C-alpha cells in the first residue's frame, strides 16, 4: 500500500456526523419518519 493518508474526508465525515447527531438530538428523525410514512401528494403531482 503506497500513498499518504488524506485527512479531508475524515474532517468532512466528522462534520456531517456532528450535523447528523444535532438532528437526532432535536428530534428530526421522528419528523422524517412521519413524513416518509405518509403519501407525499406533491411528489405524486397532486398536492
Amino acid at each position: 500500500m503506497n500513498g499518504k493518508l488524506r485527512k479531508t474526508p475524515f474532517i468532512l465525515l466528522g462534520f456531517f456526523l456532528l450535523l447528523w447527531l444535532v438532528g437526532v438530538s432535536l428530534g428530526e428523525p421522528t419528523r422524517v419518519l412521519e413524513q416518509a410514512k405518509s403519501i407525499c401528494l406533491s411528489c405524486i403531482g397532486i398536492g
Partner: protein
Amino acid sequence: MQTIRKLIQAVWIFLINGFWGFPITGNLYQGPLKVICSPGLNCYSCPAATTYCPIGSLQQLLLGVRFSLQTGHYYLGSFVLGGMGLLGASFGRFICGWACPFGFIQELLHKIPSKKYSIPPLLNWCKYGFLLLFVIVLPLVFVDQFGLGKPWFCKYVCPAGTLEAGIPMVLLVPDLRTTLGFLYLNKICILIGVIVWSVVASRPFCRTICPLGAFYALFNKISLVKLDLDKEACTNCKACHKVCPVEIHFNETPGSGECINCMKCMTEACRFDAIHVNVAGYRLGQPGKRPAVTSHQ
C-alpha cells in the same frame, strides 16, 4: 466488472424498494426502516420504498422551518443533510454509478437501440441550479400565510417521483384518480421527456437535473473512496474518453464532479494501470504490470 456493477445496482433497487406487501395492504411501507436515508434518488412515496428520499425529506424540512420554529421545534434539516453528507463524503458519486435506482433505469433505457446524441457540457451546470433553487431557496423563501413552503423539486420536476410513486399510487389508490389535474400532467410530460432523452443520450437526468447528483458531485474530488489517476502511468492515449458514459475526459479532469465512478475507464479502457480506486489516500490493489507499448493505436 460492469456485470458486477449491474448486479449491485439491481440489488440496491430491491433493497431500497423491498416492501412487496403493498398490493395486499393497499398502502406504502410505514415501518421503522423509513428513518434510513436512501443513498440514491428514490421517492419515499413509492409503495415499495423502505427508506426516505434525502431530496424529498430535505425539502419537507426546509419548507417547514418557519412553522417549526414558531411551534417551538428546531427541525432545520440537519439530520437529513448530515446523512447526505456522510454518504457524499464517503463515496462521492460512486453512489450515482452503483446504487441509484433512477440512474440504473436510465442506463437500461439507453440500451434501447437508437441514434445516440451527446449532451452539451454547459447543461451539466443546470443540476446545481436545481439543487440551489428548487431544493433549498424556493421552499425556504416562498411560504403561505402559515409559514409553509412547497417542495418545489418534488412538486414540479422530479420524474423519479412520478415513475416510482405517482403512477403506482394512482393505480393502487382509486380515490386519488379523481384529484388528478395539470400538475400530474406536467409531471407525466417531464417523465416522458426524460425517458425519451435517456434512450438517445446517456444518463441525461443525472447529468443535467439531479440535485442529489449535484450534491454528491461536490465531494467527488475529496471523498474517502474516489477514482484516481496515476499521472506517471498515463500515456494520454485517450482510451478513457471513448468509454465514458458521461462523456468526461478522465485523464484531463480526474475527480470531476461529472464522473459517476462507474469504473468503465479503469476496467475496460486503460491498459496502463493509470486509473485506480483510492481509499483515504491509499491505492486499492497493487499496480499491475504495464505493457511496454506507449499507445493503444
